[in-house]
């Protein structure tokens, strides 16, 4: 027994010695990843971890630019056909070779109904094998953003999946967990171990085809849910990078001698939406009136909100106010449209009176309190601003699962005025138009909870989907966004800023707007 104890202590000491290696990155964020299966979950941090281990045909770099990965080159043969040359000599982590069969297999796997990553391939009609290292992708119609979705199409090994009986994507009570806990990718990092909610370790894959832009020998990811503990762990030198930094602690970390805060813009746009479809507002039963159907009322709300004050007081400067529904960096962003209409409560009052509501009306603002940075605090600031123009507004702030139920399809968009944030998963404006700004068409308007609708915008969206000339396409995006802006279809607020705490042990870490650490781009001292 004593021997065993001694051996265990020795093992502990050895483990401690290993952890002191300077090229180990230890990083932490609020929660753990949802799983390692490349095709089950579609969630930001989970996708980032998957992209350390798995690869797509195309790689999206930290600055959002696209680069060859498992495909070395591609060309568009005709409007609906793309030909991809696959990289030769690539090996999966278990040593088996990567070929066109793996791409075909992964396509069949990712498009299963239970897969949430299927959005990445839903314009694809067929993938044909030309040779072991060449494939052809045929899309249903012309698809201008096929390449933008390719980084989300992770390639798995056919033999490995079949051997381990994990060829189907299943969730819930029948969930097959093998691929969710074990990995076999071609990516730059190999999984060492994952203890959910505790620790995930990866090491660089020695036979990776690429040239590493990092100098790591190991990376350890730890979820730390409590903000104060996460800050303490950074300051005490137990972790090297952590995010998000609570805004009130930015100063404290910058004043410390061993860590700094790295800030930058995020891609998510936070906005408020209005119910524009009910004939009668939820809070005005019996009146038969819905003031939000009147553009002037929506404009009055817009001009009553003082975004500069919210940025200064609530966000402590860590936000970028926006007039557009998409952020800089998203394909289709038009700087000329990004200016906000001026804050002008007097004009807002006048607009309300013109619309026939000089004494305001009752309305409830639905707001999450644990989803976005200072979400509830923003709403608490908006409420008195709207009250100032005479509207009788109440706040209903609650946890995200209840909030999204209420404003979403589950409860029939049971809201009149709500907060929501959105990052286009494809980094293209079309995603925003389809999900938030339009209604018509299969799968469209899923989160257009106020059902804003404009015939010309609908028409433009259908054109944008198939237009392959980028210049013409961007002009159409700008036109649609301009109409939406002048319609006051939603009330865009800001893009929140990313805040990462970075210890002095790190030489450089690229801050991606997705708010996740991409291990490909971390240099330790």
């Amino acid at each position: 027994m004593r021997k065993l104890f001694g051996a265990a202590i020795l093992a502990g000491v050895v483990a401690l010695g290993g952890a002191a290696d300077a090229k180990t990155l230890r990083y932490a964020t609020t929660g753990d990843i949802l799983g390692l299966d490349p095709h089950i979950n579609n969630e930001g941090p989970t996708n980032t971890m998957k992209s350390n281990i798995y690869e797509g045909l195309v790689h999206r770099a930290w600055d959002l630019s696209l680069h060859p990965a498992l495909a070395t080159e591609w060309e568009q043969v005709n409007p609906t056909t793309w030909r991809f040359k696959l990289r030769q000599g690539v090996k999966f982590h278990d040593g088996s070779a990567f070929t066109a069969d793996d791409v075909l297999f992964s396509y069949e796997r990712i498009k299963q109904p239970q897969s949430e990553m299927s959005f990445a391939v839903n314009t694809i009609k067929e993938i044909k094998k030309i040779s072991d290292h060449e494939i052809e992708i045929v899309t249903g119609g012309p698809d201008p953003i096929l390449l933008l979705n390719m980084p989300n199409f992770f390639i798995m090994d056919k033999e490995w999946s079949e051997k381990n009986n994990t060829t189907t994507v299943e969730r819930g009570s029948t969930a097959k967990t093998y691929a969710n806990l074990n990995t076999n990718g071609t990516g730059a990092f190999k999984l060492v171990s994952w203890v959910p909610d505790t620790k995930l370790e990866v090491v660089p894959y020695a036979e990776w085809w690429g040239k590493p832009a990092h100098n790591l020998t190991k990376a350890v990811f730890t979820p730390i849910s409590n903000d104060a503990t996460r800050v303490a762990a950074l300051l005490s030198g137990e972790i090297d990078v952590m995010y998000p930094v609570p805004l009130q602690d930015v100063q404290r970390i910058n004043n410390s001698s061993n860590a700094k805060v790295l800030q930058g813009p995020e891609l998510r746009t936070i906005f408020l939406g209005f119910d524009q479809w009910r004939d009668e507002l939820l809070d005005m039963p019996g009146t038969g009136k819905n003031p939000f159907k009147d553009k002037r009322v929506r404009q009055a709300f817009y001009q009553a909100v003082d975004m500069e004050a919210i940025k200064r007081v609530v966000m402590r400067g860590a936000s970028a106010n926006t007039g557009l529904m998409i952020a800089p960096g998203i394909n289709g962003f038009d700087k000329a449209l990004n200016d906000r209409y001026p804050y002008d409560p007097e004009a807002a009052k006048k607009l309300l009176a013109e619309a026939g509501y000089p004494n305001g009306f009752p309305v409830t603002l639905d707001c999450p309190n644990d989803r976005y940075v200072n979400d509830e605090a923003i709403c608490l600031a908006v409420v008195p601003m709207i009250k100032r123009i005479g509207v009788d507004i109440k706040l209903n702030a609650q946890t995200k699962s209840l909030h999204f139920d209420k404003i979403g399809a589950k409860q029939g968009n049971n809201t009149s005025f709500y907060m929501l944030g959105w990052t286009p998963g494809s980094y293209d404006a079309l995603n925003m138009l389809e999900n938030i700004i339009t209604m018509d068409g299969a799968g469209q308007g899923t989160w257009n909870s106020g059902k804003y609708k404009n015939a010309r915008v609908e028409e433009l969206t259908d054109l944008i989907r198939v237009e392959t000339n980028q210049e013409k396409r961007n002009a159409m995006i700008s036109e649609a966004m301009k109409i939406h802006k002048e319609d006051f279809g939603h009330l865009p607020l800001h893009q929140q800023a990313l805040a990462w705490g970075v210890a002095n042990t790190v030489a450089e870490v690229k801050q991606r707007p997705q708010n996740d650490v991409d291990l490909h781009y971390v240099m330790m001292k």
Partner: protein
Amino acid sequence: MFAFIIRRLLQSLIVMLAVAFISFSLFNFVGDPVNNMVGQEATAEQREALRVQLGLNDPFPIQFARFIGNAVQGDFGVSYRLSRPVSDVIATRLPATLELVFVAAVLALVIGLPLGVYTGLHRHGFGSKVLLTLSLIGISLPTFLIGIMLILIFAVWLGWLPSFGRGDTVQIGWWSTNFLTVAGWKSIIMPAVTLCLFQLTLIMRLVRAEMMEVLRTDYIKFARARGLSNRAVHFGHALKNTMVPVITITGLQIGSLIAFAIITETVFQWPGMGLLFLQAIQFADIPVMAAYLCLVAFIFVVINLMVDLLYYAVDPRLRVERSGGGH
């Protein structure tokens, strides 16, 4: 005795059923797990299909009956968040919580009992007054604050102890233990101290009050009259007679230690059941929440039973009354 245990077990079963029922009906208020499970781009059809597959659209009685039916067979379903069987998930978390609670309980007893005796015997001494004032602080400061303060002092300023996690654990079968590595011991100190502080002060104050009570009784006076040593009077007679309420409270407090562990585990990112439960609430992970609540109810029931049995061992009067049973 045997009949007594059987009766208690049957009562426990009813308690467990009631807990399962109440917790299950509360789940209607935590929101829809589906929105947490799927990504923002999922279509309404995909969401609905998942809801049907998870059985969330079935009426409440059917969902409840299905849960009980499976739970009786030891199957608590698959966690929505982690996509693995709930029983596996809990089995990996149970050791962390139990070891933490064990250390906290031992600390509370080993420190609380002597302090209680001391303050009971020297009730007007300066030392007692200081200890009582300190215990007031221990009882009134929230766990959360104590934990953060300890982290600030011992992790950030002094750098002696780790601020989060379990350090290095050693796997013995399915049980992962902190007790075999230095890092493991270092990690458990702050969470255990944080967790035990409330119990420690409670035990100390309880023992003090009981001691003062007992020292006034006739048999203590008689013992002194017999010329017994102070030591024999205080520990052989007085302390022994204060033990029944102390055992009850300590026993029941082990249950609350497990429950209080939720906050301590969150502050120290201690990967136990409390942290698991809190994350399950945020995610609306119904299978994990249901299993956790049932397990905690089960632990309470078992502890109560054990406390009842311990009475027999400590208090001979109970044995006399019951052994004459059959009247």
